[in-house]
């Protein structure tokens, strides 16, 4: 993993390698180097499989983190490539799609478009509804979306619901004498 990192580092301005397990590491790369890096990985380094593409909302930094998790099946190694892209407060973030490298990426990109509001211009069917139908609010996975508030405003509640701390409650139920 390290020597892979070294090799790649000579080619791309990579960040430090975070080794989560011996066979799983993460590196950060500037957005403009993502595509060459992915191509290098898929074509030269044997990372032929896109395991997943997901995002993290770093609302404090005003950034989205995209994680492209690739797998080299022959060597049984996984490498996550992280990219930080700017996160506009309102409206869409944009990023280049990689659906031409891995067609499956289009599905992830649709999901990210719907759930995070990250647009991948040109990705197939990216503007169509993915999971949500008739969604009217801001993308629900953004951290500034208040799901509880949304739920209270939109869905009828049945009165009488109590909320307890499960641990305390179970303790009370099982050991009512409070031992």
């Amino acid at each position, binding site marked *: 993993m390290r020597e892979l990192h070294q090799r790649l580092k000579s080619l791309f301005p990579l960040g430090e390698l975070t080794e989560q397990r011996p066979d799983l590491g993460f590196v950060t790369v500037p957005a403009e180097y993502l595509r060459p890096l992915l191509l290098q990985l898929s074509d030269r380094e044997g990372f032929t499989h896109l395991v997943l593409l997901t995002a993290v909302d770093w609302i404090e930094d005003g950034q989205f983190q995209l994680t492209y998790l690739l797998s080299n099946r022959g060597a049984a190694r996984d490498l996550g490539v992280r990219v930080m892209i700017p996160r506009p407060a309102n409206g869409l973030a944009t990023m280049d799609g990689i659906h031409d490298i891995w067609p499956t990426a289009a599905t992830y990109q649709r999901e990210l478009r719907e759930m995070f509001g990250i647009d991948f211009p040109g990705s197939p069917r990216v503007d169509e509804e993915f999971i*949500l139908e008739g969604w*009217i609010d801001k993308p629900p996975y953004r951290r500034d979306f208040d799901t509880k508030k949304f739920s209270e405003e*939109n869905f009828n509640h049945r009165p009488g*619901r109590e909320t307890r701390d499960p641990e305390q409650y179970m303790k009370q139920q099982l050991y009512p004498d409070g031992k």
Partner: protein
Amino acid sequence: MKPELMKRMVKGPDGQEFEVEPLRDYYCEAAPTVMPAAYIKIVEDFFNWARSESIWILGFGTGCGAIEMRPLMTPRFDAYRYGVQWRPTPRQSNLFIISGYLSVKTLKRAIRSYEQMQSPKYVIGLGSCTINGGMYWDSYNTIKRLDDYLPVDLYIAGCMPRPEALLAGFMDMKKIIRAGNAEGANKYAENFDWYKANQKQVIHDWDMPDYNW
């Protein structure tokens, strides 16, 4: 709305142009009506007995509770001996079990399936999610009161209720039917506007006819 459902101009083979509006042309627009019971009480009682002894369940697992219904067909629980069977098509089913949480998206399908069943038809809410939202009480996309949207005859509480609980639920259901109190379909027809209003309140992209025959 899907582009397939939009109005469109179509040119016939003879060159005539006309408008096709799928929701109007392809779907029956009639509203449901209240179906009266049989004219003679004893006949209705007889039918109710038959209905209670022959409960056909729509095999539509809406949530995680669906997994609890499978064991009912196995030797251990064997619901068949109570006249309970699963049917793969709503047309032939009498009982719709909403098995657990119901997202808005699934709700749409559930409504559709419910409306396609023939009356008399019954709904059982399975698990606390259908009662008050359960562990999804603050989720952005699940409903919390099933009876606002469909006429529920019976709730089986639990998260999740075990198959035994379901069996007990069936027995209660039978009692309700036999007593002639399972008039959910008629209730739905009577309060059709109220149900529709509730449904449309959460389903923002309402893209089907008001009643799915």
